[in-house]
């Protein structure tokens, strides 16, 4: 079943099959949960473009965008 809110079991299984990763049936849900959390963290980082730039500019550090 693919009822999990977040990254789906189907996507995880597809990726694992493609890359030769064996995931046990009783561990797939934990992996989906961990990936969902990880993607949330990555999404927060993706939003940091501006803040990182502003952080550097605020301290008058020269950076190339």
């Amino acid at each position, binding site marked *: 079943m693919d009822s999990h809110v977040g990254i789906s079991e189907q996507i995880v299984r597809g990726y*694992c099959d493609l890359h030769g*990763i064996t995931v046990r049936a009783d561990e797939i849900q934990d992996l989906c949960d961990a990936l969902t959390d990880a993607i949330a963290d990555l999404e927060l980082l993706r939003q940091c473009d501006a803040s990182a730039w502003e952080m550097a500019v605020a301290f008058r550090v020269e950076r190339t965008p």
Partner: protein
Amino acid sequence: MAAGEHIDPWLSISELSSRIRAGEASPVEVVKAIVERTNTLNPVLNCYITVDEVGALEQAQYLEDLLTRGINLGPLHGVPIALKDNIDTAGVRTTVGSRVFADRVPVADAAVVELLKSRGAIVVGKTNMYELANGSWHPDYGETRNPWDQTRSCYGSSGGSASAVAAGMAYGSLGTDTGGSIRYPAALCGVVGLKPTYGSVSRVGVFPLSPDLDHVGPIGRTVADVALQFAAISRPSTDGEAHVEATQYQVDTIDDDINGVRIGIPRTQNDETVDSEVQGAIGAAIDVLEQQGAELVDVDVPDYLTSCRVVWTIFSATVAQDHRKLVRERPNDYSKTLRTSLLVGEFIPAVDYVHAQRLREGIRAAYDEVMKTVDVVVLPVTPVPAQKIGAEMININGRIEPVWPVFERYCPQFNATGMPALSVPCGFSQQGLPIAFQVTGRSFDDWMVLRVGSAYQNATRWHNSHPAIVEP
């Protein structure tokens, strides 16, 4: 009286060294006393994976023979030191806390071990650690217990090294720190831990987690003990890998006063994300430093949680790449927790990894600017004291937060920047659990960081408290 029973396990390294120099204690007696204590307490605390009694006694006898010939190798001569089990020791198994490497016996010592031995230190054993230094204890080795409350975690990944020193099962130890792994357990166990400047201590012969974030550093019961170990290991290595600049032998300078030293206090220091007891203890520590003549300066520092996520992204992708082959070949030799973590790392897109590296440059640049205005910055190590083993959520002033990344928010930034960072005990919670503050400074100015920590300890007595461990 058992051999070495009169050797006080709570002596500082310099006190022990003085007794050995004066002939009041012999290295063999000292090792016997430590091994005896370890045999009693290790079943309770699980600090050591391997106790090398035979090797330590041989080393002690050799050092004792040198003393009878009038040769003293310095302040570590005859001092038993413990090593995290990811630091190679010739002829002594080095498991990295992993089943994959359970039977691995290195043929050579790590560069830091060579340096310690050349200064007379005795390697008494290999300490327990997170599996591959990454996030959790492997069930084969179990979890190290906090000597102040055995129902509580000492966290990781150098938990065994910190707990052993806190419990008097070694006079000092080495750990490794990729995102705070020396500083968290040192803080939670009430001992001192230094993550030195990146590049000031060789990592040759130390099992990598994420090489551009990994650091090797000392743990001790006092700042002076940490300084003595740091002085021994912060030398240029013959392989050319370490690039020591200004971090030379300056142990004597740690007792210089801190009159006029500028201490940065982040404006975000005392917010609701730090437990009120921790805030109080750190506030009192800052008052002590001000009374010693330091000048307090408000500073703005990069966002802590962003820094945490940056480091997590870099190291997760790196570790996943390093173990990509092995985890496919031997999945059952990894714990379920680590296997999941490694697979998550494989899902991190390259663009996010590159983005994290660019954010890291932003963090580094921001701190470079901060450090133009101050000599050190003082901040928490952890927002709360040691938590119950297995806790996944923490209560901070009534707010329930996940352990990760909240618990780790104050440390990984200095792995990203490479700056030195020292954890110093500064009190106890009402439950009797240690609290610590963190001092960071300019890269290759580790001695200034140690000087501030030493000034604090010279004015306070927290470091003289020791846990009453319930023996079996």
